[in-house]
């Protein structure tokens, strides 16, 4: 079954680019939508036996060893969901060649699925590269100077990360003589905390490389520019899922599966996580660009996930996983809102906006839901994941980090209020009298994500209850 997640996008990309593709260029949109929806359905229904028997027909291991657990299923579902939103926003707001975009999104989905499913670090590297290279092209699709600058910044730091990761793989292979997660994990366990120099080198390089991919402070320099300068549909994809899979998911796997949450790695992750929470939120206050605020806010929220990953208890890991999903939905929602505002008014400068709530009610209301979830206000989904993270960090004995995580919510409140006041409330800014909502697909995306945010918040205890009853949450750490 796992192979399907990689095969379907791969086959579709090949089919779309056969000779005579001019004849069926228009089908690219449907191919992309099909892949995204198929992925969501497949990840949700993987437990059903009959369905499993059918999909298992495709279980030939054409590449490396693939594995799937509850954690990967959640991430795979999120990839499908956010890709679908990105496709919808592209359809309604991107006015250049959409054919390339849909092809690239298929490739990037394949890359991300590979990252999630693979169980050895060299395949991980290959899929990370597929994801990264596709992302460069996506960011630079507009071909403006700004777009190239953003893509270039991402490219250079990402290349650095690639070098680090590849070197780390070399060191690891030299020491362990195997690249599969389980072998490395049991080798490290056997060392009993006394690492030889080349393992230390591998760990340092691996942590640094993945932190660059995740945009954790102080490795975050590329992130705001890349998010800001790319087309809206790409920003949603990058902020919503690509960075999260390439950086955050890999760090979670690395810390939990490979490193077995040893203290030294945990401490580093928690320190960088807490730093990201504070720096990201502080930088978000006072920005003038709608998307830039969201970009820094992403750094801050990713900090929560990394902090919880560092804390390492099962509860913390559950919190990290839930925040992973919640952040993907509510941050994509806010990026959809910014896309709608930019599409309708032609600007993202919050000083030039104002009073849009009356003109764009869907965008106004859904953005409030998104921000309330960011702040961690009940009954939104973000409340629960943040609460669990804070409690988990507290009970793991790291009181200072827990209080920092709690205090940072105030900073979140600050940039929320600034943004809401300047964009949606107050007097209607000049020249915005004829502004309308940005179209049905955009509103549909915003409403869908807002509904997920509210519903996940209200039904959260029942979701947890269900997962617990089926023993699924234990799979978070295999």
């Amino acid at each position, binding site marked *: 079954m796992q192979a399907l997640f990689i095969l379907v996008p791969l086959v579709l990309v090949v089919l779309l680019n056969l000779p005579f593709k001019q004849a069926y260029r228009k089908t690219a949109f449907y191919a992309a939508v099909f892949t995204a929806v198929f992925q969501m359905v497949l990840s949700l229904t993987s437990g059903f036996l009959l369905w499993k028997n059918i999909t298992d027909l495709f279980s030939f291991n054409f590449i490396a060893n693939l594995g799937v657990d509850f954690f990967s299923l959640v991430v795979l579902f999120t990839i499908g969901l956010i890709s679908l939103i990105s496709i919808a926003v592209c359809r309604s707001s991107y006015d250049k060649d959409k054919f390339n975009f849909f092809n690239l999104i298929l490739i990037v989905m394949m890359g991300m699925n590979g990252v999630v499913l693979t169980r050895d670090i060299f395949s991980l590297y290959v899929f990370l590269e597929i994801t990264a290279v596709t992302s460069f092209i996506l960011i630079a699709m507009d071909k403006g100077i700004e777009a190239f600058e953003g893509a270039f910044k991402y490219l250079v730091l990402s290349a650095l990360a690639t070098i680090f990761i590849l070197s780390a793989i070399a060191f690891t292979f030299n020491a362990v003589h195997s690249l599969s997660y389980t072998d490395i994990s049991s080798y490290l366990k056997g060392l009993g905390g006394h690492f030889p120099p080349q393992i230390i080198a591998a760990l340092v390089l691996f942590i*640094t490389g993945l932190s660059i991919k995740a945009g954790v402070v*102080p490795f975050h320099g590329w992130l705001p520019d890349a998010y800001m300068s790319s087309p809206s549909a790409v920003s949603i994809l990058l902020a919503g899922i690509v960075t999260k899979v390439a950086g955050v998911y890999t760090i979670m796997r690395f810390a939990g599966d490979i490193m077995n949450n040893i203290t030294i790695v945990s401490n580093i992750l928690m320190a960088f996580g807490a730093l990201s929470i504070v*720096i990201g939120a502080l930088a978000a206050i006072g920005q003038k660009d709608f998307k830039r605020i969201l970009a820094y806010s992403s750094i801050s929220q990713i900090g929560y996930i990394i902090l919880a990953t560092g804390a390492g208890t099962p509860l913390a890991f*559950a919190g990290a996983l839930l925040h992973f999903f919640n952040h993907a939905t509510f941050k994509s929602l806010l990026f959809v809102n910014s896309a709608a505002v930019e599409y309708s008014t032609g600007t993202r400068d919050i000083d030039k906006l104002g009073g849009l709530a009356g003109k764009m009610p869907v965008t106004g209301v859904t953005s409030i839901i998104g921000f309330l979830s960011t702040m961690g206000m009940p009954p939104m989904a973000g409340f629960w994941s943040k609460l669990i993270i804070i409690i988990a960090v507290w009970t793991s004995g790291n009181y200072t980090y827990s*209080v920092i995580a709690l205090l940072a919510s105030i900073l979140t409140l600050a940039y929320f209020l600034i943004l809401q006041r300047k964009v949606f409330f107050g007097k209607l800014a000049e020249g915005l009298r004829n502004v309308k909502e940005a179209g049905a697909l955009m509103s549909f995306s915003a409403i869908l994500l807002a509904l997920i945010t509210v519903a996940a918040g209200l039904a959260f205890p029942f979701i947890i209850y269900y997962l617990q009853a089926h023993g699924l949450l234990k799979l978070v750490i295999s």
Partner: protein
Amino acid sequence: MDSTILLLPVIIPVFFALVIFLVPKSKAWIVMTAAVAGALLNFAVCLTLAGHDMTLSFPWIAIDTFRIDFLMKLYNFSSMMIFFLSCASLLVIVYAVSFMRGKENLKAFFAFLLLTAGLADGAILADHLILMFFFWESILITIFALTMTGSKDSYKISVKALVLNGTGDFCMILGIALAGLMMKGDLSLSSIQNSPIPLTDFAGIAAFILLTIGALARAGAFPFHTWITDAARESPLPFIAFLPVSAAKLLGVYFLARLTLDFFDFKPGTGMSVFLMSIGAVTILAAGFMALVQKDFKKLLAYGIVSQTGYIIIGLGTGVPAGFTGGLFHLLNIVLSGICLFMAAGSIEKQAGTVNLGDLGGLGKKMPLTFSCFILAACSAAGVPLFGGFFSRELVFEGTIETGNIIFYGAAALGAFLTAAYLLKALHSVFMGKENGNYSPVKEGIKDPGLAMTIPMVLAATLCLLFGVFNQLPLGGLVEPVLGARLEHSFAGFGQHYALMLATVILLVLAFLNHIYGVYKTGKASQSLDHIGGAPVLSGIYGLAEKNYFDPYTIGMSAVNIFAVAVSGIDRGIDWIYSKLLPGIFSLASLLVRKAHTGNYALYLAWSITGMAIIILYFIFH
């Protein structure tokens, strides 16, 4: 009865709120019908539940060893609170159906009002601190949304309400964390009640103070009151009558009462008792003095209500049965009289088109029913003998005497004088004296408003009197069971402390004489208290507060003496902390961080390398 019925007081209002959200804007009559139906149904359920004891419990969240159960508990205290809350929301909604007709934000107003009622029921019934906080914090959103339903400039007030209440909630979650630490993770209210947290060590005291701040912020006590007085001017009146006056007050006081009574080992005469009573005394005096000089009817009442909250806090803070009973009873009385006073003010606003005290006058003859209701409610608020407010306040006085802290009795007694003074001023300048032409009344001429507005007003006013004359009903039936075995004898009836009562009567007479003197001196009821400005100690207050009223930036400029600065300055000064100082600190930090992001790529690379160096160093020296 099956205990799942406990979910109904939450589900019914929330369901009707959702229905209202879905109704199109043009169908105002469906909105109103749904609102009244929701409030009535909620009232019926709360009435059915009254007097029952039950608990609802099912597993809720469980991850690893972490576990939160969904616990709700109905017993005499919580059932009294939800019953009273359902009465208040029913009265306000019926009143608002007429008051809000034709207003722009009608739909959002009713929907969020019902939502607040449902969430508040949930917070009161919850028997687990996390569950309670879930509801409690959700109300923050509805407060924000409800303040937004006012005029176009409401955004600033909404933000202020959000920040003040958010600060309180923030302290509260810290307090919950500390309490959780001391209770070893068991945050069920019943288990805390079984082994109250001792107030002897630092952690216990810190937890108590933090949780108390949370409760006080919601109840609108000093220094968390500034948004209420601002909102009184801008927001639709039924909102004030519902949220700051009833729902938030009931909720905040309920939690405060549980803190002192059940959760902590709270004893009279301890430091924490003095701490609470001090906050109460400061609230009474600071808000009372501010109320004296208001020119705006609604703002005067808002300060008055804040001031009355001080009595409840002093009463609960005494830690003795008399004070506690008095405090809770005073809560019921001020909610009733507050609702009635604000409804009267709303009727005036609707009929006369203004609430400026200087422009009104002689309306008593034209609006006899509103006038009578106002008198009854004002008598209860001012503590005139035989009215509800009199008995509750006497009990608070008795409690302060019992703790031996005469100074708090002094503050409370001075507050009684102030209350009578500003209510007399309002009464005289609005309803009595000569009619003033400075307003634009409704076309048909000023008269009592329609039935939908008068019925709730008359009901509330009648209860103000009944709660006094038949005080064994609310005292014996509602308030005293809360104390249970801790109560040695009932406080119902006329009471025993004749000396205290005599003192109160003398204070009321003094206030009356003072008023007459003021009117005689200035010739105007609305300026009847201006002569106090001539008194040597208070001379600065009025000039300052009045300038402050017109132009807040001149605070401190005309300070004549320290007392004046203290009273007026603190009110605005706390405002300044929220609106200038804290944002200033954050902006500075934010500016530094932003300046660091120059966009220079070499710098970003350098950061990354530094980060890596830190990791290497950590690995080497670990």
